[in-house]
């Protein structure tokens, strides 16, 4: 079970990322606990200034853009 957080406030990009991860996790049959983080203090506390960001099992793996589907695949499989 992977613990995944999507960081971001507005823009709508963050919702896109949530959906992408959800769909791909379903397709790959990977179990995930997906959570959206909008609180700025938490986001900055993780060292991220540009959203959307992605955190997997407590580790920041991405920030500043909607990640490529291939990247999401790699995170989910890894």
């Amino acid at each position: 079970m992977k613990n995944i957080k999507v960081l971001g406030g507005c823009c709508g990009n963050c919702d896109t990322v949530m959906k992408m991860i959800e769909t791909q996790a379903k397709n790959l049959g990977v179990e995930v606990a997906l959570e959206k983080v909008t609180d700025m203090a938490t986001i900055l506390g993780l060292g991220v200034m540009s959203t959307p960001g992605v955190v997997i099992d407590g580790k920041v793996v991405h920030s500043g853009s909607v990640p490529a589907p291939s990247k999401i695949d790699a995170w989910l499989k890894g």
Partner: protein
Amino acid sequence: MIDPFKFLADLLTIRLLGLDVTQSLGGALHFFIEDTAKIFFLLALIVFVIGLFRSMMSPERVRKLIGGKRRIVAYPAAVGLGAVTPFCSCSSIPLFIGFLEAGIPLGVTMSFLIASPMINEIAVIILASSIGLEFAVLYVVTGLTVGLIGGLLIDGMKLERYVEDYVWKIHMGEAALPEHPESWAERAAYAWGEVKSILKRLWLYVFIGIGIGAFLHGYVPQEFFTQYASADNPFAVPLAVLMGIPLYGSATSVIPVAEALLAKGVPVGTVLALMMSIAALSLPEVIMLKQVIKPQLIAIFVGILAVAFIFVGYGFNFIFS
């Protein structure tokens, strides 16, 4: 040199539809087609090219670059970086907090916030190609100066107490710099993603801007502007600035409007003041800033900029009259 965008507009309006471009409808349509083709082409191209290099300019990196520098270095650096990094306005808040947290003075942070929406490479290139290089340079230099002066004033007034208290309590983790796209293929994919996301966010505003520009170009007689917006009318500049405050538009979407106004003989200063006011001050921007600063500082921020833009307007109208 043949201008391909003008060529396209000529072809469609004159040849295909048989319209007279000196008439209202033909003129407006010609303006609309030429500007739509030109602005969207340039927008996509520039965003893509910048996207290729964007990974070198992440906000985390900008923060590191400015942090710990003395003011004499930090101000020009903040204003310059604000100009070359067109972050989405959503990133204003994390940037603001991240900057202050890194010990960057409030004034420097504000300089960055002023310069960033007003000047960006997209607006500059489109300005240069549709209005002219001189006007583009004027816009950039003035915008940088306003950003610098605005930040210095806010610094001098010691307004730190008007920053929301929680902001000072946030502790930023050691920026775990995300891995940057390494291969050119990855960079191109990232850049293409940027083009899509920026176009998705801007297309409507750009169309509205072009629509207004085309309408002014085709349907509003020159006399209207000579009567109400000439340099002789002392109220034209403040009115332009006031009108621009609530209006939300990216610097890019205002360009067609500016282009039409200049062609109708509206003085340079008035047009500059209107453009800057629309780009730098807007309701959404104020609502966003409200999350991190108290109303007093927002009022000061809007006040300083409005006064600065009015000065810009009068100043250039005076110089060019």
